[in-house]
């Protein structure tokens, strides 16, 4: 197990290198002189030269890259070009918000999607199946922002059950925290819920026709055990692939959700940094997104390893 994870980590190193290089180069190519951007167009040439010196902008590119990587590795992501505050502080402030919302969203998606998929597969062609298919289809086709606005309207404005914006942190007040994160999480999680539902339904239908499910039935174990232990258990393996893809996709949707619900998460950081052309911030955010996707993939591989004994051979 540890050897497996170690090998995966080794495999990730070149990918990380390429990603950091790409992020770095793209930022170099973007129009705009950071020195000018910081000091404004009326700056004197001496001042510009001084700040270039300080930022290391007149060093060769590879030196700039190396020093950037060195800083990133030591946790220093640079300073915002807008207000000169450390980027890492802003990110550490936003990260828990986005993590909490995304994990809650995936949890909701699993809690809804998996049982619904099982019901769809076991009641194939019946009313349960029709209802599940209909819900699954709606979940996938309704846009997240629309669901978000609908939720806001009904649960906050009309019923007044939940606060309409803002975020309470988990360690401050966990009930309040749940209240502020439940609506964004639903809005984010509905699409993956629909996708999980359909995937579990179709792979379970396949599994229930398989020879090993027939063997399980021939043993005389209960129908429930046949469905869950043999049908569902083997369907979790394809679910895993989709889960990791959906998680990554979800991270991309936080911009809209943060904006609608006024959350101080990653989405807001992205939004602000783009509006204000805060290059250092953007660079760091892109890097963090890329690293998160890699981490998710690593976790997925580890989960495969646990769920599917056939992987150990390779």
């Amino acid at each position, binding site marked *: 197990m540890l050897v497996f994870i170690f090998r995966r980590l080794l495999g990730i190193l070149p990918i990380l290198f390429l990603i950091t290089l790409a992020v770095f180069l793209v930022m170099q190519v973007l129009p705009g002189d950071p020195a000018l951007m910081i000091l404004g167009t009326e700056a004197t040439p001496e001042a510009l030269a001084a700040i270039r010196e300080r930022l290391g902008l007149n060093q060769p590119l590879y030196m700039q890259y190396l020093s950037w990587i060195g800083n990133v590795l030591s946790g220093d992501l640079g300073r915002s070009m807008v207000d000169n505050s450390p980027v890492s502080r802003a990110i550490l402030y936003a990260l828990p918000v986005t993590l909490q919302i995304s994990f809650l969203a995936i949890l909701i998606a699993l809690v809804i999607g998996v049982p619904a998929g099982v019901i769809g597969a076991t009641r194939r062609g019946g009313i349960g199946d029709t209802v599940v298919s209909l819900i699954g289809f709606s979940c996938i086709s309704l846009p997240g922002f629309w669901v978000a606005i609908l939720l806001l309207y009904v649960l906050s404005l009309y019923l007044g059950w939940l606060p309409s914006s803002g975020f309470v942190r988990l360690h401050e007040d966990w009930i309040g925290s749940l209240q502020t994160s439940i609506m964004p999480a639903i809005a984010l999680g509905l699409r993956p819920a629909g996708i999980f539902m359909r995937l579990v339904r179709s792979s379970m239908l396949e599994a229930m026709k*398989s*020879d090993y499910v027939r063997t399980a039935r021939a043993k005389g*174990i209960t129908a429930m055990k046949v469905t869950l232990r043999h049908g569902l258990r083997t369907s979790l393996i394809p679910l895993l692939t989709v889960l990791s893809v959906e998680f990554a996709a979800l991270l991309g949707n936080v911009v809209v959700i943060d904006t609608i619900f006024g959350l101080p998460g990653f989405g807001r950081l992205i939004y602000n940094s783009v509006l204000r052309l805060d290059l250092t911030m953007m660079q760091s955010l892109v890097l963090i997104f890329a690293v998160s996707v890699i981490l998710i993939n690593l976790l997925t591989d580890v989960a495969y390893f646990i769920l599917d004994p056939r992987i150990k051979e390779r």
Partner: protein
Amino acid sequence: MPVERNIVLEVDNLQTHFSTDEGVVRAVDGVSFQLEAGKTLALVGESGSGKSVTSLSIMRLLQKGVGRVAGGRILFEGRDLAALTEPEMRRVRGKDIAMVFQEPMTSLTPVYTVGDQIAEAIMAHEPISKRAARARAVELLETVGIPEPATRARAYPHQLSGGMRQRVMIAIALACNPKVLIADEPTTGLDVTIQAQILDLMRRLQKETGMAILFITHDLGVVAEMADRVLVMYAGRTVEEAAVEPLFGEPRMPYTQGLMASIPRLGSAPEGVSHPRLQAIRGNIPSPRNLPQGCAFHPRCEHASPDFCTHNVPALEDSGMGHMVRCARWRDVLQTAQVAP
């Protein structure tokens, strides 16, 4: 004077239908037989003749909503299985009647160890702790001739060969000492040496436990080795049924004769090559969707008479000493066979 017989399973006029897009398919149409404790009945016939459907009907494992037992009785020790509720039937499966399937490569769940899969079969019917069930699983692996059973119990199916997996399947089937074992082509896909080992194993286990075996196969060579009685199926019906010696010595239905003629002679198959699938009879087995008028076999039959066989379905009749034949012309067929060298 009938001899005392201990009949554990009796199938009486079984009818199994599938609803398909093209209408109802009568995959099994009026099959009857009796299975005695400690004895083996072989079910033979070409592909598509309804052998597997017969066995799945007995176990009530037909795909729900598609296949159903439409008529007849399936009596296990006098109880009609066709009339049981699903929870009652569940207690029969694996406990009273167990089954070994055709495909050892895909019949085990890939994500559990074989030991756990055997233990699951035990725990389905006995109040026993998981530890005790696992220990029994190891004993069962030893019984079916798997070396280092304690280690192998922790192996996953993909780590075992086809022959080993089929032994595991047999161990699962034996887990609760069933009175009837249904083996649906348990050796197809395995090479000849392994085939012989599996057959030996089944014979030995039958002697030890006294279970009855319903042995399904294409391979008449295997039938001669394994069976006490033989039932030949064609297009969902019984066409001949007899004890092994009379059936092999004097087959009375032209179809059975065709099957016999297609057995490779001893030694004719090269070492390590399994018997080829039966195909020596000209023509193909008709689709049960679209059976010919009259005797279902007449288009392929050398003895078919244009007047009778093409219009009338012959009855299954006793041609003497319980040798059942479904052929209007069996007497003539028998004569020609005796005249011929």
